[in-house]
């Protein structure tokens, strides 16, 4: 019987991570979003003022421990964010609670990450599974972007979301790299089968902010879908393919500008790294303003140091480049009605902005 390994939630990308973990000789324990039960466990166990993603990860691991999972892994992010210490904190809190689950870091301290030292996977099957995982990441990137495009134009509301779920379920079952490729190639045909209104020119809104909030639909209260169902084309700036591609210098289909390029763009407003993806967010906002996006939505966990510190900076960018930014702060008390009201009012503003510019153009 293989030992089980709980992996942190990264939205739909967890499907790809799970495929990679398979190759480590452990059975993955995962979900694409933190469910209500895990969330409640995390909130009860975590310090009150800590950010929402931490609570979600903690709850996820406690739920894993309840299910008898032996190991868990957590990223050791490098950078100025508190996330750096989160693996250690998770480990300590779980230990204090008398939980048996072991938390391994993914960072390098020595030649191999600790998780590899422990599980000691044979190298060939590992590489094979990583290759499958990377291929799945590319496919998920495509699913995410295709969904955003189609959902904003669909004629029957909800059809695209269902198709997305269906595609992700299928992708989970696929075992070989070749099959993932075939599946990936077939995606554009499947999304084309959704009836869309091509004449529509939907509002284009880019989502920036903290990674877990951008990708875990429980944490962001399904923000992307809410926007999509109101006919907004979203661009989510966290695409794992681009991130991996930049980190390891490989081609992953979707290109993201490198950290260096983004830093240069952000420089007039923010000259140093503040942790997380905060500097990238500033650069993305500048890029989007120039690319003619209608607006940005900045999702930020309450108390997240990097994201909170760029708020005033984003406000300045917003004034200078005339791009509206909706600031959304999430914690466990955020109610879905408040989210809906803000989003609706914001969309009303954007629609009237569009009308005004149209009038100006004809005048």
């Amino acid at each position, binding site marked *: 019987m293989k030992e089980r390994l709980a992996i942190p939630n990264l939205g739909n990308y967890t499907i790809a991570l799970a495929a990679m973990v398979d190759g480590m000789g452990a059975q993955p324990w995962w979900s694409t979003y933190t*469910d*209500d039960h895990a969330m409640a466990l995390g909130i009860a166990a975590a310090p009150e003022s800590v950010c929402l993603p931490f609570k979600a990860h903690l709850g996820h691991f406690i739920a894993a421990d309840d299910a008898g999972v032996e190991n868990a892994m957590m990223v050791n992010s490098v950078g100025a964010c508190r996330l750096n210490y989160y693996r250690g904190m998770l480990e300590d809190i779980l230990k204090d609670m008398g939980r048996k689950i072991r938390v391994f870091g993914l960072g390098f301290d020595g030649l191999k990450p600790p998780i590899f030292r422990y599980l000691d996977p044979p190298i060939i099957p590992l590489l094979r599974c990583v290759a499958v995982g990377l291929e799945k990441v590319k496919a998920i990137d495509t699913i995410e972007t295709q969904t955003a495009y189609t959902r904003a134009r669909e004629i029957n*509301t*909800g059809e695209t*979301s269902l198709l997305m*779920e269906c595609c992700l379920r299928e992708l989970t079952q696929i075992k070989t790299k070749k099959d993932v490729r075939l599946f990936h190639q077939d995606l554009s045909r499947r999304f084309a089968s959704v009836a869309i209104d091509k004449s529509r020119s939907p509002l284009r809104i880019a989502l920036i902010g903290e990674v877990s909030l951008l990708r875990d639909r429980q944490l962001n209260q*399904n923000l992307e*879908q809410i926007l999509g*169902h109101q006919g907004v084309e979203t661009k989510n700036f966290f695409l794992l393919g681009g991130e991996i591609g930049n980190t390891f210098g490989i081609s992953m289909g979707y290109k993201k500008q490198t950290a260096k390029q983004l830093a240069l763009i952000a420089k007039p407003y923010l000259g140093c790294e503040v942790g997380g993806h905060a500097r990238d967010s500033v650069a993305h906002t500048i890029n989007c303003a120039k690319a003619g996006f209608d607006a940005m939505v900045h999702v930020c966990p309450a108390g997240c140091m990097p994201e909170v510190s760029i708020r*005033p900076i984003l*406000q300045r960018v917003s004034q200078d480049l005339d791009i*509206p930014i909706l600031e959304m*702060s999430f*914690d466990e*008390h955020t109610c879905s*009605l*408040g989210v*809906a*009201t*803000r989003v*609706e*009012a*914001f969309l*009303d*503003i954007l629609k*009237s*902005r569009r009308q*005004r510019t149209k009038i100006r153009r004809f005048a």
Partner: protein
Amino acid sequence: MRRGFLGIDVGSISTNVVFLDGNKNLLFESYARVGGNPIDSVKARLKELASLMREKEMEVGALCTTGSGRQLVGVLLGADVVKNEISAHARAAVELHPDVRTIIEIGGQDSKVIIIENGMVVDFAMNLVCAAGTGSFLDSQARRLDITIEELSRRSILSKHPTAIAARCTVFSESDMISKQQMGHAQEDIIMGLCHALARNFIGNVARGKQLCSPVLLQGGVSANLGILRAFENALGCKVIVPRHHMVMGAYGAALLAMETDIDKSRFRGADIWAHHIHTQSVNCEDCPNNCEIIEIIDTGEVVGRTGGRCGKW
């Protein structure tokens, strides 16, 4: 039958109804406390409205619901438009004062600031988890002082030397207020101090970082409070206008929005609905792991609509 336009604002504390004729004349306006049951409250308002409509031989041309209960009541009554309260309040303010630049709207549970340029909303902010700047806070303080909310309003402006009260969260404000009482400050001064604290808290938290330009409108349930009005004028250093239908601005805006929809036949299920037996029940949708709680609205034994759920299926 002449067509009229109905706007219903179902808030946390009150249910407001406005009925306009085709020339934007206000025929019916009602502000009433919800008392914990929005459906019954709406039914009671509709009962009054139904008799007026019969008398004037009018029908509902279009209905728009707004406020935090907009979805529920929208489904229940068959609304043609369901609009968020920010847009509704802004619409009403622009109608009455076309040159308005800033709207301060303080309701029962939340407070908002809306920034307007050339009659268009350009920015807004809403309180997050803090209730220190809202009507329910004043309500609970009035109850603690054992006076009505109307009396609180009247007595606040009698104050000559308002007491300084901590303007942070309700808990701190309240304990500060108790200690000031025990130090022997006059009740009027404490009440006015409270109003100042609320206004300061609003400007510091909700409207943080926003330029509040004149003309400023104060609306929502709390706008009836003279002390709050004075406190805002004091804090902003300019005149603050309380518009004509300030208590029912949300509903008024909703009625205007209803009028602007271009529909032939309203989906309104009839003003006689007040006589129906309506209740709700919650069921769990088990179609996906989300397990959303769905609210079914049942009108005399028949399911007339459902709300809730994350996927948009219901």
